[in-house]
């Protein structure tokens, strides 16, 4: 059961081979055993989860329950959930209990899924390793000396260690895809606007997008079916007809044009990663896909542009954490300005403070044009690169990250090195395109390598189709970390 796909779990529940309560308890036991070492969860509340499982069992008993009914799902602690501590990985919100449900939570609740817990993350999603979390780093189940990636690293570690069948994450510059890659999982960042941001604590509003992390593309399709959909409370939510993201999974790949951007195979790409990705491209060719060389000429500008736009938006988004209405407030202060100063200095960690400072700077009078406006222009150029690319191919494929997972502490002191982790994933966020990562082999120290797939707007079904066909032909996604078996 711990290794089962969502489809199999769903069938087992429907056939009463197992109850949701039993299934939930199974994973809760696993969490109890492994979480002290892996630190994937910030909050676990067995009573709450089991109560939800009982409700799900009643629903299943009535028959006609939805595919995810009774299945426990772990949620990144960035999603506000009613009655659940919702910290966003920050000391600032270490006392904040969600007074309402995020749209994503609401959708899982409506589908009958069980909230299994809230997962660890980089503080306010700012980081690529979970090392900026106020709750300490999560560890990579493949090797606990390594980071699981971030910012949705807790979700990735939870699924990789089979503490959860699936999890949610958010992706602003790669925060779903990079941890999926580093933890040997499948992760999808949908087209901007597909998943509602209501109740997803904002990092950079124009880039943030929620999505699923799971063991396979097939699981991702089922999860996306629940998560995606128009929400009138999010003005950037896209109003379009409902679709079944699993509908094209079984389509053959003959004739699929796979674009390979030369810019993502140059300097900076580790040989082990390059090798695994190259093998995956060959596998796609075997499946009937055609390899097309493409260029994303402005790719190199994406990280600098991203690290202007994202902090700019963040500096404003995080202003609400001022100690006035909720969250932590400094104990002693002289006056209002001092209260703000101390509350924010104490409540935010160094990476969050750094980004607020950068963001404040680039929006300041006299610097706005040179930084913020210029970055917006670069953003347009990057989006145009993809418009050109998709004239030549159906999917853009390459490595998700330049290297496999790095050791905890290895990059913590060097923000620029840390930021370069996002080099291949950030363009999709800037362009608003859907991107995903699937496991495609192992590199140095037997650590997983991720294959990055970017599709055109709203082409999630097609991306999932390609990934699923690849996963039918390979077994990378079925490998599980050794040494953590109970």
């Amino acid at each position, binding site marked *: 059961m711990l290794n089962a796909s969502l489809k199999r779990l769903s069938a087992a529940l429907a056939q009463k081979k197992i109850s949701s309560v039993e299934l939930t308890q199974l994973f809760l036991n696993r969490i109890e055993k492994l979480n002290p070492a892996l630190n994937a969860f910030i909050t676990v509340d067995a009573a709450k989860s089991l109560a939800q499982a009982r409700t799900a069992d009643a629903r299943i008993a009535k028959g006609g329950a939805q595919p995810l009914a009774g299945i426990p799902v772990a949620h990144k602690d960035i*999603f*506000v959930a009613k009655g659940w501590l*919702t910290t*966003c990985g920050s000391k600032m*919100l270490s006392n*904040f209990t969600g*007074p*309402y449900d*995020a749209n994503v939570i609401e959708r899982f609740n409506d589908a009958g899924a069980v909230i299994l817990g809230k997962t660890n993350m980089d503080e306010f999603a700012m980081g690529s390793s979970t090392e900026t979390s106020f709750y300490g780093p999560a560890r990579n189940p493949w090797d606990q000396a390594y980071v699981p990636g971030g910012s949705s690293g807790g979700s990735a570690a939870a699924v990789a260690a089979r503490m959860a069948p699936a999890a949610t994450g958010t992706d602003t510059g790669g925060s779903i895809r990079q941890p999926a890659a580093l933890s040997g999982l499948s992760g999808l960042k949908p087209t901007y606007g597909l998943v509602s*941001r*209501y*109740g*997803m*604590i*904002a990092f*950079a*509003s*124009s880039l943030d997008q929620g999505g699923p992390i799971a063991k396979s593309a097939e699981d991702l399709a089922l999860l996306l079916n629940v998560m995606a959909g128009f929400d*009138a*409370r*999010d*003005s*950037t939510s896209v109003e379009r007809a409902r679709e079944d993201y699993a509908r094209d999974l079984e389509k053959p790949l003959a004739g699929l044009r796979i674009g390979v951007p030369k810019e993502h195979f140059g300097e900076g790409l580790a040989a082990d990663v390059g090798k695994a990705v190259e093998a995956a491209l060959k596998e796609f060719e075997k499946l009937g896909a055609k390899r097309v060389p493409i260029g994303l000429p402005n790719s190199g500008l994406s990280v600098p542009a991203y690290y202007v736009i994202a902090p*700019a*938006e963040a*500096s*404003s988004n*995080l*202003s*609400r*954490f*001022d100690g*006035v*209405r*909720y969250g932590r407030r400094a104990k002693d202060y002289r006056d*209002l300005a001092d209260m*703000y100063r101390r509350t924010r200095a104490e409540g935010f960690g160094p990476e969050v403070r750094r980004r607020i400072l950068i963001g*404040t700077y680039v*929006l*300041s*009078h006299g610097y*706005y044009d040179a930084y*913020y406006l210029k970055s917006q222009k670069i953003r347009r150029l990057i989006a145009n690169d993809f418009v050109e690319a998709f004239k030549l191919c159906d999917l853009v494929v390459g490595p998700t990250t330049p290297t496999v997972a790095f050791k905890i502490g290895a990059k913590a002191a060097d923000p620029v090195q840390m930021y370069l982790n996002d080099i291949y994933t950030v363009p999709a966020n800037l362009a608003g395109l859907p991107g995903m990562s699937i496991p495609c082999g192992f590199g140095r120290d037997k650590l997983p390598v991720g294959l990055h797939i970017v599709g055109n707007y709203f082409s999630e079904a097609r991306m999932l189709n390609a990934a699923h066909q690849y996963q039918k032909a390979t077994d990378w996604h079925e490998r599980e970390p050794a040494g953590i078996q109970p």
Partner: protein
Amino acid sequence: MNWETVIGLETHAQLSTKSKMFSGASTAFGAPPNTQASAVDIALPGVLPVANRGAVERAIRFGLAVGGEKMINRRSIFARKNYFYPDLPKGYQISQYELPIVKGGEIRILTKSGEKAIRLTRAHLEEDAGKSLHEAFQDMSGIDLNRAGVPLLEIVSEPDMRSAEEAVAYAKTLHALVRWIDICDGNMQEGSFRCDANVSVRRPGAPLGTRAEIKNLNSFRFLERAIEFEVQRQIEILESGGKIVQETRLYDADKDETRSMRTKEDAHDYRYFPDPDLPPLEVSEEWLEGVRKALPELPQGKRERYQREYGLSAYDANLLTEAREKAEYFEVTHKLLKGPSPKTVANWVNGELSALLNERGVGFSQTLIEQKAFAKLLDRIHDGTISANAAKEVLHGMARGEGTADEIIEKRGLKQISDAGAIERIVDQVLAANAKQVEDYRAGKEKAFNSLVGQVMKATQGKANPAQVNEILKRKLAS
């Protein structure tokens, strides 16, 4: 050498929507603190703004009213204005900065020196902040977020006004307009309509002087007093060789003076940038057309029409169009009448009836005296049944619910004596009894005539038709 005053106004008009600019919470005034603040208004983590269509529509109405479709930006942008204050829950105010929904337009005002057009720079949508309460708590401040997120239209004029009188005329005309087109209730005590005045002085022909901005003027009288004080203050500084500092000032109504709040040096860098939570605000041609069609005839149009069609003076037309209800009352009454001239109707509506309604604190929309009943009264003056003086008494009687005009005339015996024979008999008696005045009149003393008229009126207890008395007296004296 004299000084020229230069004034520009920024007006915040609260839009009359039921819900807030970006949330579904109620905008009703006067609720207990924080009972009308939703998750969005208190800026909980994760919440997002959704623009209120009704508020946008009201902004469009305004744009159409001050200059037509050319004034409406088909695409405008919501921006964040960033600053920290406890009553600003998000740490930024959502406003419009580079691309407002309304650009340009004008407001035509009437002052003693005639009509003048005041150009508008722009009008943009924004949300209000909450309120800090510093009094009620010991060593602490309270925050009431009921106001947070209330929709505002900030209307910015060009520095086209040259006196406090013009500024007040502009504010009053604007106030009437926003009520006329039903986008703001105009309640100044509740803060639904408030002005910031940018005031500077210069030598005529010289470039603009340094300005001071006086904040939050919430009555026309304060606006006038604050500007007058400020102009005087600036002139005194300049004439004694000083310099004006660009600053924000507050008007203290109790002391009748303005005082410095903050200078330009400690001005914020608001770090405006487009709000990524809100896509550009698009106004389609269909939407615009729909709003245009629903727009009532505007005060400026009515003013011109009243002068053209009814031959009213600009002054009368202006008074009638102070409020839409008043203009409509005038038009309905006028249509019911054949005899009395539009001028007579206008005089009664602007004069006695306005005074009466004012006294009672009711508006023209309330049916204290229905147009039909009012028309009947005017008819009775016209057909000579009662004098204008008696009509005032009848009107007040009607307001007290004593009956119709005819019933009151009857009950109170206010009917004029219009029987020529009866009046002639009285005139004869008066002439016989006042030989001296008759002599004087015939000797060229015009005053004697008035005295004789007075005698006739006295003899009839004021009920004789004055026109008839005049005519008969003149005839008899001439013979």
